[in-house]
C-alpha cells in the first residue's frame, strides 16, 4: 500500500532522532530504486523460492470444515517457510537490500524470536554480521530460538530495561543504529517504525496475499470471502490483506491478543474496543497502549510475538477506515484453537497464528457453507512446545524436563572431567 509521504491517514510518519536522518534517507532511496529494478526483484523471487520454499501451499481443511459445518476453511501455510514463519519473506528482501547498499552488519529486534532467527539465518547465508536485541523476558520464554540464533553466529543481546519485551528490544535496536548507522542496517521485523519501514516490510510480505490470489483462483475459481490474520506488529496481516484491498467483496479480519483479560497490562489489544489511544513513539504514530500521561504500558499475550505495545500504522489506518475488522482472542481460546488444529488437520500452529485460528473458528459455524475463508497460518508451533505444554497442564512434561536436565548436567560434568 502506497503511503502518503510516509503516512497512512493520521498514522505512520517519521519521528526519529536527527542522527538517523541520513540513514533513513539512504533506505528510502535504496528501496525506491530496488523495487523498480527487475534484477533485484528476480533475485528476491529466486531466494524466496529456492531458499525459503515459496510459494507456500494453500491447504484446504476438510475435517475442520466438517467439524464447524459452516464456511470452507483454508490455511495459507506460511509455517512452511524456511525458519518456520512468514518473517523470512521480509528478511530476505531487506538483507538483499543491505547487500545493495553495501552495508556489512544487520541489527534486529525480536519478540518471540522468529524474526531474530530469520535474520540470523539470512545473515549467515549472505555473510552479514548480525546483532539481535531481545527482551530479557522473551529470552527466557523463547530460549530455543536464542540458542539457534547464537549457533547461527548472531550476537544476542538480552535487554533488561523497562518491560523486557519487544518494545524495549526495539528501543535498544534503535540506540544501536544511532551509533552504527554508517555500516549497519536496522532490519526491522514488522510493518512498524519510521517510514519507509512499514511500506517496505508490507511490500516484501505482500507475496503472501499475491500467492493466495493465484491459488484461490486455481483451487476454487474465485477469491476468498474472508481473510483472517493475527495482528501483533501487523506484518503477516499486511502481507495477506494488502493485495486484496481493492477487492471490495473480500472481508478482512485481524485478531489481536486478548491475553488474560481486558485490564491494562493483561492484553495487547490496541485496535479493537477502544483500548488503545493514538500516540507517537518508536519512530511513528499509531495506536498504543499507554496511560493518561502518555507512558507506554506493559502488555501480555501467551504468544510472545503478539505482545507489542503499538501496531502497524497501515493496519491502524485500515481498521480506523473500517476496511479491516478487528477482534481479539483470549489466551485460553488460543490454546483450544491450537489443539483443535493439531487433532483435526495434523498441523502444529504457532500460538501467534492460533489467534487467527481462534478468531476464524468463532465465525466459521455461522458462515454460509459455500463461503470460503483463508486463515494466515503465519508460523509453525514447534518453538512453543514448552509454553503449550504448560498451557495444556501436561503433567508428563516436567518429568521429562527434570530427567533431561539431570542427564544434561551429567554430560557436562563428564565433559569437564574429560578435559581435565
Amino acid at each position, binding site marked *: 500500500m502506497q503511503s502518503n509521504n510516509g503516512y497512512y491517514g493520521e498514522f505512520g510518519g*517519521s519521528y526519529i*532522532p*536527527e542522527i538517523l*536522518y541520513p540513514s533513513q534517507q539512504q533506505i528510502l532511496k535504496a528501496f525506491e530504486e530496488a523495487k523498480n529494478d527487475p534484477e533485484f526483484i528476480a533475485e528476491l523471487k529466486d531466494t524466496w523460492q529456492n531458499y525459503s520454499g515459496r510459494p507456500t501451499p494453500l491447504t484446504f481443511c476438510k475435517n475442520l470444515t466438517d467439524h464447524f459445518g459452516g464456511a470452507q476453511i483454508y490455511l495459507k501455510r506460511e509455517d512452511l517457510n524456511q525458519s518456520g514463519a512468514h518473517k523470512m519473506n521480509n528478511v530476505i528482501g531487506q538483507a538483499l537490500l543491505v547487500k545493495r547498499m553495501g552495508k556489512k552488519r544487520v541489527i534486529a529486534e525480536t519478540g518471540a524470536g522468529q524474526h531474530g532467527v530469520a535474520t540470523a539465518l539470512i545473515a549467515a547465508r549472505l555473510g552479514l554480521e548480525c546483532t539481535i536485541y531481545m527482551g530479557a523476558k522473551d529470552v527466557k520464554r523463547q530460549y530455543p530460538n536464542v540458542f539457534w540464533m547464537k549457533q547461527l553466529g548472531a550476537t544476542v543481546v538480552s535487554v533488561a*530495561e523497562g518491560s523486557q519485551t519487544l518494545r524495549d528490544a526495539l528501543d535498544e535496536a*534503535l540506540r544501536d543504529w544511532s*551509533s552504527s*548507522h554508517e555500516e549497519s542496517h536496522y532490519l526491522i521485523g514488522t510493518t512498524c517504525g519510521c517510514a519507509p519501514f512499514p511500506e517496505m516490510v508490507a511490500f516484501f510480505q505482500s507475496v503472501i496475499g499475491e500467492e493466495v490470489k493465484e491459488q484461490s483462483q486455481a483451487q476454487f475459481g474465485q477469491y476468498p470471502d474472508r481473510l483472517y490474520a493475527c495482528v501483533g506488529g501487523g506484518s503477516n496481516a499486511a502481507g495477506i490483506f494488502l493485495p486484496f484491498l481493492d477487492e471490495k467483496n473480500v472481508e478482512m479480519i485481524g485478531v489481536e491478543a486478548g491475553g488474560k483479560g481486558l485490564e491494562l497490562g493483561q492484553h495487547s489489544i490496541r485496535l479493537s474496543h477502544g483500548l488503545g489511544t493514538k500516540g*507517537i*513513539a518508536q519512530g511513528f504514530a499509531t495506536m498504543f497502549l499507554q496511560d493518561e500521561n502518555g507512558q507506554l504500558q506493559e502488555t501480555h499475550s501467551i504468544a510472545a510475538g503478539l505482545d507489542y505495545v503499538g501496531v502497524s500504522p497501515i493496519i491502524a489506518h485500515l481498521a480506523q477506515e473500517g476496511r479491516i475488522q478487528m477482534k481479539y482472542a483470549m489466551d485460553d481460546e488460543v490454546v483450544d484453537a491450537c489443539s483443535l488444529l493439531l487433532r483435526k488437520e495434523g498441523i502444529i500452529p504457532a500460538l501467534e497464528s492460533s489467534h487467527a485460528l481462534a478468531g476464524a473458528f468463532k465465525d466459521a459455524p455461522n458462515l454460509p457453507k459455500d463461503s470460503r475463508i483463508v486463515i494466515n497460518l503465519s508460523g509453525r508451533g514447534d518453538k512453543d512446545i514448552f509454553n503449550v505444554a504448560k498451557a495444556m497442564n501436561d503433567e508428563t512434561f516436567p518429568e521429562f524436563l527434570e530427567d533431561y536436565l539431570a542427564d544434561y548436567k551429567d554430560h557436562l560434568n563428564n565433559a569437564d572431567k574429560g578435559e581435565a
Partner: protein
Amino acid sequence: MSQLANYISDKRQQKPILSMTHVVYGYPTVKDSLDWMATLLEAGADFIEVQFPFSDPVADGPTIVAACHGALHNQKPSVEECLTDIGKLARDFPESRIVLMSYLNPMYHFGLEKLVKRCAEENILGLILPDLPYEQAGDLRTYCDAHGIDPVWLVTPVTPKDRLAFLAKEARGFLYCVARSGVTGNSNHNGEKQQSLDEYLAEINSHANAPMGVGFGIREKAHVDAITGKADVAIVGSALLDAYNKGGKEEGLKLFNSLFD
C-alpha cells in the same frame, strides 16, 4: 530576537561558556529532583535542561534510560505538575533559565498547544524534543511562534551539509549541536567522531542564526575547554547523573564545579 538567545548573548558578555545541566524530573523522586535542580541553580548553573521522563527514551543511553524508568517506577509524574514545579524554580532563580526536554509522546498526550502555552506562563522558554524532526513539527512551530517559545533543533556530525545549513538558519533560542553519533552517556552505542569537533562547530557557526550549545560526551573539564570559544553553552547530562548516582548532590556538585569553575 528570542528571549533565550538574548539571555545567552547577554550572559556570554561575562562568561566564555555557559553551563547547561541536565536533570530527570522525578528521579529518584520528584522532591529529590527538584532539590537537585535548586542546588545546581544555587551553584550558578546558567541553564537546567529538565527531562520529563518517558518510558521509551530512544535517544538516551543507559544512565538516563535508567533514571527515566526510575522516575516512572511507583510514581506517575504528570506534565502539568512538572511545569508548575519547574516554573516555581524559574521564578526563584531569575538569573538562570530552565528548558524542557522530553520525547514527543508524553507531550503530544498533554497537548502540544497547551504545552507551549503553559511553558510561556511558567517562563520555560525552550523545548527540546529529540524525536520530533523539524519537518514533522509544523504545528509545534506555529504554537511556539505565537507564545515566544523556542523549539530547539538538533544537528549532528552526520547531518548532510545542506540540511545542517538549513537547520542552523532555522535555529531559535539555541541550536543543539550533538558532538558525536550514538545515544547520550557512556554506552556500547557510542559512535566514532566523523571529523574534528572544531571543523564541525565552525561549519555550524557559519550558518547559525542562534547561539550554539554542545552536548553528548561532555564529561570532564578538557571537554568543556575544547568547545570554549567555539560554542556558547556546554550541555552536561549523563556525566552529571553518573556523579549524582555515585555520591548524591555532593559528588554531582563536585563535577559541576570542576567543569565550570
